[in-house]
């Protein structure tokens, strides 16, 4: 048995040494290669990673790019994963999530010929080959809050949020509250952050559901769920009670959380997919520039609620959107302070 074992081990070892490396044509200047590195999490997270990847896939179909992604398992591997693409001659590397910001800028210094797109990465100082795609989440949240403030019958609305360790979540919350007060100054707000660490804050639908339930018991009739699966748990819980509204986050959650259809009036969106694609396009046509690129935000379509949301609410939202865009009204959110 020992002999068999030794033969087996030798065979495996041999196979490893002779392992063929993949043919890479990315080193060639004619081939546009786009790589994407996710934040810790999965590519099909129905949120950030997925939306950014869809933008990259759009580059594959529209621009004929060769595309590939790596899912990050450990936050300490960001630079390693970026380097895998860089060392294989990729032309554009998309990194998803504010947590990759530092690693992206560091890699940009090491690989000056490669263009980097950092989704959700605010650029404090401009680096020539890094475009940070950022979104004014507070404005998106402001619209959601205004909608909630106009829809509520009880005068109480709620937000079920991921952790305040993540700045965009804070921006959504502050914007939501400001938007609600903007349309209804005396509104009663119940906003709750998940109390756990980063490892659970976005993956705790049970907590989201029970927190939404508590808010409903306190009289809330519109609930904003902003925090990955935690927020989705809140949406689904709200859907279980007739006559209530819920609002999703990041993407149009009508597509991603069908269980929430009975209450999902809209979602506070960040338009990541077109944002990523547009920057890739700018690299191809030579107009790429480093620094911050501000992506579009907005509310998702009302879908089944299209007819039940009164026209005057729709008109008011449209005017608020215009005012926000021209900075005629402020959300009051100031991340630096």
């Amino acid at each position, binding site marked *: 048995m020992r002999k068999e074992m030794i033969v087996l081990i030798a065979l495996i070892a041999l196979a490893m040494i002779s392992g*063929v490396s993949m043919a890479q044509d990315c080193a060639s200047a004619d081939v546009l290669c786009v790589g994407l590195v996710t934040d810790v999490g999965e590519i099909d997270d129905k949120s950030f990673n997925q939306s950014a990847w869809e933008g990259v896939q759009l580059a594959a179909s529209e621009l004929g790019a060769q595309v590939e992604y790596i899912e990050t398992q450990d936050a300490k591997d960001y630079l390693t994963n970026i380097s895998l693409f860089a060392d294989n001659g990729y032309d554009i590397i998309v990194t998803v999530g504010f947590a990759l910001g530092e690693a992206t800028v560091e890699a940009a210094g090491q690989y000056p010929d490669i263009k980097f797109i950092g989704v959700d990465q605010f650029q404090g100082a401009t680096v020539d080959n890094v475009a940070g795609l950022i979104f004014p989440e507070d404005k998106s949240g402001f619209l959601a809050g205004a909608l909630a403030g106009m829809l509520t019958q009880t005068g109480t609305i709620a937000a079920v949020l991921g952790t305040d360790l993540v700045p965009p979540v804070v921006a959504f919350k502050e914007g939501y509250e400001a938007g609600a007060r903007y349309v209804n100054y005396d509104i009663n707000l119940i906003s709750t952050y998940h109390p756990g660490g980063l490892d659970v804050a976005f993956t705790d639908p049970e907590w989201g559901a029970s927190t939404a339930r508590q808010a409903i018991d306190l009289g809330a009739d519109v609930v904003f769920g902003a925090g990955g699966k935690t927020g989705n748990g809140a949406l689904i819980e709200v859907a279980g009670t007739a006559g209530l509204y819920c609002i999703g986050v990041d993407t149009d959650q009508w597509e991603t959380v069908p269980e929430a259809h009975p209450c999902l009036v809209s979602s506070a969106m960040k338009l990541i997919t077109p944002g990523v694609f547009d920057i890739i396009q700018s690299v191809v046509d030579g107009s790429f520039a480093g620094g911050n690129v501000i992506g579009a935000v907005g509310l998702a379509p009302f879908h089944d609620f299209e007819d039940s949301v009164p026209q005057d609410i729709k008109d008011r939202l449209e005017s608020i959107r215009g005012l926000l865009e021209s900075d005629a009204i402020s959300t009051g959110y100031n991340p630096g302070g």
Partner: protein
Amino acid sequence: MAMQATEQEVRGTFGERLAGFWRAASVPLMAILLAALIGAIILIISGANPIDAYAALFRGSFSNARAIGRTLEKATPLILAGLAVAFAFKGGLFNIGGQGQLLIGAIVAAALGFGLNGLPFIIHMPIALLGGALAGAFYASIAGALKAFTGAHEVITTIMLNFVAINITDFLSNGPWKDTGIVARTPAILETAAIPKWDSIPLGFFIAAAVAIIIWYLLFRTTLGFEIRTVGLNPNAAKYAGIRVARITILTMAISGLLAGMGGSIETLGVVGRFQPGFNIGLGFDGITIALLARTHPLGVIPAAILLGAMQAGSSQMQFDAKVSFEIIDVIQALILFFVSAEMIVRWILRIRGEGDGGVRLSSGWGQG
């Protein structure tokens, strides 16, 4: 007197020691092989070529100096987290709180790393390293004291203290010790507190390996180690033999926490460079896998940690070259743990195939490595 008996039992002749080594190592080795084979079957079913995948995994973890550096970097906290669990096992305690002790160690090391100014490297780095380790020791001794004085089971208390640690560190890194800017994390440690790398080889690894040898010596060559193991085997007998069980219990937890805390320290000072929530997830729990794979032997922890470290270091390369999701690594890791725990299955396979091997010991408990 008792001391001499153990030393003889431990040392034996060279042949006996070799046989003993094979007895101890055969199950983990077989478990790894079985896990790799089942992993290969899963890869085939999911449409990937297992040879390509394993080859890429190997390339990503050992093929050049950078890859080896990455492997050792991953292995370093795993050695210490594994030692923490293994050491507590020897004292009859199951420390599930390695994760919490590691977090506390990591943030205290960060605070000492950015907070102390004007010290030279030769003083600053050791202070930060030991400060983090001692914080871990203090944190674990809470569970030890609860066990010693009230009988509260350490499995329950250490699990609960993990959550307390997560929230303490989140609060500190998003509150009093927060860096300027919007990101929740501490400031970067000063240059004088950083554990350097020699080329791409992290020196923290050698600190961890040296600690493993010290722990082995402590357990098997000192009176304190003998007392700890005696309490682990039978606390009542230990009490009648005149050992102060409560004191040993607290001390065992404290040393276990010291090890986990040092794992966090080295992560902060040698890898991350600051404390940031989300950067040290899962290490404490991997420590349990490592300790079981090493059969709770302090020296066995080193190869076990290098194996898991290599799998983690190579997983990105595997994704890139072989288009295999990193989740397969978790599956293989879980299978290894399964086969090491389900020792009977492995021994049965070994005996069926290995005729003429003679007496296979079927009974073996933790702490008899």
